[in-house]
C-alpha cells in the first residue's frame, strides 16, 4: 500500500489515534494528549503503544520491587524475612526454641543478631567484643556456645593451636606451610557454611579446604597421602601390661588361649576408638591370675603405725629411762620407724635432729647403745613418738589431716610450677561475657578430698586404744578431756569387738577345714614368735575377766574382709586392705609415693606395695597433677572420665586406672572401631594389629617410662595400603575429615 508521507515513530509511548484511518496528526501526539490545537479540524485520541505499555510496566515493576525491598529492610534484624536459606537443624532448633523451654532460646527479634554481628550495629564490632580475641565478630558469636567443645577456638589459629604447639604442628607438616596462612586467623564460616538447608551437615568439609594450607596436594588417600608411620602411636599406659610377654610367657605356660576379644570387646561407644576397650577391669582380665598373690600379700596387712622395739634393759644400764613403752617392744633394738611416724617427728626441728642422728639404714638394730649419745637419742625418740601418739589419740583425725596437709604443702612448695597451678585454677576459662552457660568453679579441691579420704580412713578410737595399750592412760595434762572422751567409744568398741570376735568364732566353728592340726599348725605359727605370746599371756592373766574371751588377733583369721586392728605382737596398728583397689590403700600408697625420695631404697619393699606397683605405676607427677584439679591437666585420665572441676572419689583413683580416651578428647587423627567391626573379615583383631618382633623399639625392655608411666607398644604400625584397600572415594570414602579432626586439643601430649 502507498506509504503516505509522514514519519512513523514506533518508539513513542503514544501514537496518533487517527493513524489507524491513515491520516494522523502531522506532529503525532504530544505526550498523552493530541499534538493538535483545538483550532485544528480534527484532534485524535492517542493510543498507548506496546513500547509505551512496556515502559509503563517497567516503571511499575521497578517501583513495586523498590517498595518491597524497602518494606523488607526495616525488618532485617528480625528473623526470617531475609534468610537466604534454611538453617541447619541444630541451629534452627536453637533459634526457634520457645523462650521457656530451651535455656539457649533467643528472642525472635535477635535471631539474626545471634550470629551476625553487623546486624546489631551496622558494621561496628559486636558488643562485648574483645580486642584480645583475634577472630572476627561472627566467629566470636559462634564461640559463645562452642567454647566448651572447641576450647581454643578463640585463637582462630590453625587447628586452634598456639605457641609451641603451633610450631610443633607446623614442623610436622610435610611441605612448609606459607607463613601468611600459618599466621592467618580463620573464621568459622570459612569452612562451616550455614543456610544451606536443614539437611545440610555443617561438619562435612570438602578436602579442598584442608588443602588451602596443606599445599602438598595429592590425588587421594590411596595415592599420595603420607604413609602411616607408628600408627596407632605409642601412648603412655598407667598399667605396665605387655601383650607379647603375656601371650608368649604366661598364657603359654598355662596354655590358655590368648584371644583379644575376651578383654577388649565392649558395648559402649563413648570410647574414642568405638566399641572396643583399650583397657579392661582387673576382675575381668587380671583377677584369675593376679588375685591370689595379691590376697596372700594382703593377709599381713600394712603396719601403718608401728612402735620400734627398744632395749629397755640396756638403756637402763646406761642410766637412761625409756619411760612408758609397751613390754612387747622393750626387749631388743629392732624394726624401723613407720613412715607416718617419721613424717610426724620430722614436723618439729628437734624431731628432725633426732631423726638425723639415727643411722643411715633407718634400722634401729644398728643403733649402738654403748654410745651414750645415741642412747639418749633413742630415749628422746621414744619420747617424741609417745607425745605424737598422745596428740593423735587426743585429737584424732583432724591432727592426722593437718599433718598430712602440711607435708603435701611442703612437697608442692618444693615444686613451684605445680604450686602455681595448684593455687590458681583454669586460667583458660572464657571471658564471662561470652559464656552463656557458666559451670560453677569447684568448691573443694582434689587435694582436700584426697586428705579427707586419707585421714577419714583411720579409726580414731583405735588410736586411743593403741595408746592406752601401749602407754596406759594419757598424761595428766590432757586428763579431763581424756576421761570424758574415752568412755562412750570404749563401750562401742566392746560391742564391735564382741561381734567381730563372734564372727571369728563362728567362722572357726563353721570351717571344717580348720582341723585341730591345722589349729596346731596355727599355734605353731604362734609359737614361732615366742616372746610376745608370753607377754600377751601374762597381760591377759593380769586382768582375768577378759583373759578367756580375747585371744590375740590374727589378721588372716579375723579380718578376711579387711579393716584395722591392733597387732599386739608387732605392736602396730595394722590395716588390712579389702582386696584389689582398696581405697585407703591407694591413698596410702599415693602418700608414700609423694613422701618417697629416690636415695631411700626399700621404701616400697613390703610385699603388698610390690604387688600393687608391679602393674600400677603412680608417678609423683601424676599424683601432683591429680591435686591440680585443672580441666586441662596433663593427665588425660581426668578429662577422660569426669567432667572438669567436679572432684569425686572416683576421680582420685584416676591414676590407678588405665586411661581410656573418650570422644571428649580430640586428636588430629580419629579412628572408630565400630564401623570396621561390622565387616566380617575385620572381626579378627590381628588382621590389623600384628605383634611386633620384640626388638627395634625405643629400648630393649620394650617399653619406656614417660611421666612415671610405662610406654608400651608391641604392635606393628598400620599400613596405609591396608586402609586404602577400602578407603577410596568410591567405597569407604577418603575425605580428609573422615579420619582427621581440625579442632584439636593441646597438640604436644598427643606424642
Amino acid at each position, binding site marked *: *500500500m502507498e*506509504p503516505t508521507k509522514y514519519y*512513523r515513530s*514506533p518508539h513513542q509511548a503514544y*501514537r496518533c489515534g487517527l*493513524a*489507524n*484511518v*491513515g491520516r494522523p496528526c502531522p506532529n503525532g501526539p504530544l505526550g498523552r494528549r493530541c499534538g493538535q490545537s483545538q483550532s485544528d479540524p480534527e484532534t485524535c485520541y492517542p493510543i498507548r503503544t*506496546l*513500547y509505551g*505499555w*512496556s*515502559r509503563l*510496566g*517497567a*516503571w511499575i*515493576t*521497578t517501583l*513495586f*520491587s*523498590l517498595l518491597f*525491598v524497602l518494606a*523488607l*529492610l526495616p525488618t*532485617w534484624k528480625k528473623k526470617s*524475612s*531475609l*534468610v*537466604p*536459606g*534454611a538453617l541447619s537443624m541444630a541451629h534452627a532448633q536453637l533459634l526457634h526454641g520457645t523462650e521457656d523451654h530451651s535455656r539457649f532460646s533467643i528472642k525472635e527479634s535477635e535471631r*539474626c543478631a545471634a550470629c*551476625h*554481628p*553487623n*546486624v546489631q550495629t*551496622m558494621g561496628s564490632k559486636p558488643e562485648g567484643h574483645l580486642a584480645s580475641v583475634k577472630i*572476627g*565478630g*561472627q*566467629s566470636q558469636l559462634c564461640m559463645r556456645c562452642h567454647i566448651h567443645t572447641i576450647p581454643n577456638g578463640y585463637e582462630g589459629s590453625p587447628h586452634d593451636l598456639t605457641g609451641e604447639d603451633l610450631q610443633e604442628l607446623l614442623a610436622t607438616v610435610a611441605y612448609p606451610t606459607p607463613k601468611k596462612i600459618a599466621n*592467618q586467623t*580463620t*573464621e*568459622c*564460616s*570459612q*569452612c562451616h557454611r550455614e*543456610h544451606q*538447608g536443614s539437611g545440610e551437615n555443617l561438619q562435612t568439609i*570438602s578436602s*579442598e*579446604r584442608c*588443602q*588451602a594450607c596443606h599445599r602438598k596436594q595429592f590425588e587421594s588417600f590411596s595415592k599420595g597421602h603420607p604413609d602411616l608411620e607408628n600408627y596407632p602411636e605409642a601412648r603412655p599406659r598407667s598399667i605396665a601390661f605387655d601383650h607379647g610377654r603375656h601371650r608368649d610367657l604366661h598364657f603359654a605356660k598355662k596354655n590358655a588361649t590368648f584371644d583379644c576379644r575376651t578383654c577388649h570387646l565392649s558395648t559402649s561407644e563413648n570410647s574414642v576408638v568405638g566399641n572396643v576397650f583399650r583397657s579392661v577391669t582387673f576382675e575381668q582380665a587380671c583377677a584369675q591370675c593376679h588375685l591370689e598373690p595379691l590376697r596372700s600379700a594382703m593377709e599381713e596387712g600394712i603396719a601403718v603405725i608401728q612402735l620400734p622395739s627398744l632395749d629397755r634393759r640396756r638403756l637402763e644400764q646406761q642410766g637412761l629411762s625409756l619411760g612408758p613403752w609397751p613390754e612387747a617392744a622393750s626387749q631388743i633394738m629392732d624394726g624401723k620407724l613407720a613412715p607416718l611416724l617419721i613424717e610426724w617427728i620430722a614436723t618439729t626441728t628437734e624431731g628432725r635432729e633426732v631423726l638425723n642422728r639415727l643411722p643411715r639404714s633407718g634400722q634401729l638394730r644398728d643403733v649402738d647403745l654403748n654410745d651414750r649419745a645415741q642412747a639418749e637419742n633413742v630415749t628422746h625418740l621414744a619420747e617424741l613418738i609417745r607425745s605424737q601418739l598422745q596428740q593423735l589419740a587426743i585429737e584424732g583425725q583432724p591432727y592426722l589431716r593437718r599433718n598430712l596437709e602440711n607435708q603435701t604443702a611442703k612437697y608442692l612448695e618444693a615444686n613451684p610450677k605445680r604450686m602455681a597451678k595448684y593455687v590458681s585454677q583454669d586460667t583458660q576459662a572464657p571471658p564471662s561475657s561470652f559464656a552463656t552457660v557458666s559451670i560453677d568453679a569447684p568448691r573443694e579441691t582434689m587435694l582436700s578430698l584426697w586428705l579427707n579420704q586419707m585421714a577419714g580412713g583411720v579409726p580414731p578410737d583405735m588410736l586411743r586404744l593403741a595408746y592406752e595399750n601401749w602407754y596406759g592412760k594419757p598424761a595428766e595434762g590432757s586428763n579431763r578431756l581424756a576421761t570424758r572422751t574415752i568412755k562412750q567409744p570404749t563401750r562401742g568398741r566392746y560391742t564391735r569387738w564382741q561381734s567381730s570376735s563372734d564372727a571369728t568364732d563362728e567362722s572357726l566353728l563353721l570351717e571344717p577345714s580348720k582341723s585341730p592340726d591345722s589349729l596346731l599348725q596355727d599355734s605353731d605359727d604362734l609359737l614361732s614368735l615366742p616372746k610376745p605370746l608370753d607377754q600377751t599371756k601374762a597381760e591377759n592373766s593380769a586382768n582375768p575377766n577378759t583373759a578367756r574371751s580375747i585371744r590375740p588377733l590374727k589378721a588372716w583369721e579375723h579380718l578376711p574382709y579387711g579393716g584395722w586392728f591392733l597387732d599386739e605382737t608387732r605392736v602396730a596398728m595394722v590395716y588390712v586392705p579389702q582386696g584389689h583397689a582398696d581405697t585407703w590403700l591407694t591413698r596410702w600408697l599415693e602418700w608414700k609415693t609423694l613422701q618417697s625420695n629416690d636415695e631411700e631404697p626399700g621404701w616400697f619393699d613390703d610385699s603388698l606395695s610390690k604387688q600393687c606397683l608391679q602393674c600400677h605405676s603412680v608417678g609423683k607427677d601424676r599424683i601432683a597433677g591429680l591435686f591440680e584439679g585443672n580441666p586441662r591437666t596433663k593427665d588425660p585420665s581426668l578429662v577422660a572420665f569426669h567432667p572438669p572441676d567436679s572432684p569425686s572419689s572416683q576421680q582420685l583413683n584416676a591414676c590407678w586406672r588405665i586411661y581410656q580416651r573418650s570422644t571428649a578428647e580430640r586428636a588430629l587423627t580419629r579412628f572408630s572401631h565400630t564401623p570396621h567391626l561390622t565387616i566380617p573379615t575385620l572381626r579378627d583383631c590381628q588382621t590389623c594389629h600384628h605383634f611386633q618382633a620384640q626388638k627395634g623399639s625405643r629400648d630393649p625392655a620394650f617399653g619406656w617410662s614417660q611421666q612415671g608411666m610405662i610406654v608400651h607398644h608391641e604392635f606393628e604400625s598400620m599400613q596405609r595400603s591396608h586402609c586404602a584397600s577400602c578407603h577410596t572415594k568410591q567405597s569407604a570414602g577418603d575425605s580428609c575429615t573422615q579420619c582427621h579432626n581440625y579442632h584439636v586439643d593441646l597438640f604436644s601430649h598427643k606424642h
Partner: protein
Amino acid sequence: MNRSFPTTLGEKILLSRSGTSSRVLIRPAWILMLLGAGLLIWMRSYWIARLGNEAFVTGYALLLICFALAALGIRKRIHAFRLGPVAVWQSAHHYLGAFCLFAYVLHAGFMPDGWIESILGMLFWTILGTGFLSWYVNRNSPRLLRAAGPAILRSDIPHAKILVGEQACQLAIQAAGSTNSAVIADYYRTKLADFFSTSRPWLYRTFPTGKKRRQLISDLENLERYLDDRGKVLMERMSQLVHDRDDLDFQSAIQNRMRFCAALHTFLLGAFTVFVIAHVWLAHQYSSHW
C-alpha cells in the same frame, strides 16, 4: 566527484563477514566462552583454596556479565561515537547470555531459597528465558514475514486492514447487484464480514497459521459453479482480498509476537536491578568474610 563516505569499524566487520549474521563471530566466540568458563572455574577454586567465600567470586563475575549484557541497551542509545554496529554487540550479547546461564548455575544452583534470593532468581530466569525466546523468534521471523506478502509497517497495518475491509465490502455490494453473483454477497454476509471486521483469536496471534485462509478461499472456490464469468472475476478478487487480509493478520501477529518478547525481556530489568543491589548489599552485610 570522488566521495568519502565514512566507513566505520562495523562496516569493515560487516564487509569482512559473509552471509547470515555472526557466522564469522561464531568460532572465536565459542572459544572465548570456553576460556571464560575455565577462568571462572579456576577463580572459584582459587578462592576456595584461600578459604574465601566462593559465592563472592561467582557473584561478582555474574554481576560483571550482567553489566556487559546491559551494555547493549546503552549502545543502542549512543550513536555519536564509533562503537561498531549494534549487530556485533548483539551477537556478543547472545553469547554472553548463554555464558550468563553457566555463571548463574555456578553461583546459585538452579533455584535459591529465601525471599529476596528466590525473587531474584525468578526475575533472572524470566529475563533469561524471554531473552532466549526473543532470540529464537528474531531468528525465524524474517522468513515468516517474507512469506506473508509485501512488507508493511506495523503501525500501518490497522489502516491497511480497514482499507481491505472496505474494498471487500464494496466488492460484496457490487456482487449483490447481479443475481448471478449474489452468492458471493451471501457468503460475505455469513462468513467474510466478521473475518474482515474482527481481529483474530489469541491462539492465532501467538501461533499464526494459514488454516483459516485456506478454508475460506476453498469455500469461495466451491461457489464457482454458481457463478457466471463476471461472478468468477469477483470471486477471484474477493479471494485475493481474503488473502491480503490474512497476510496482514499474519504480519501483525508475527511482528507483535516479536515486539512482545522484546518488551518482556526489557521491562523487568528495573526490578531485577533493584533486587540485585539489595542482594549484594545484604551479602556484604551478613557474611563474615569474603
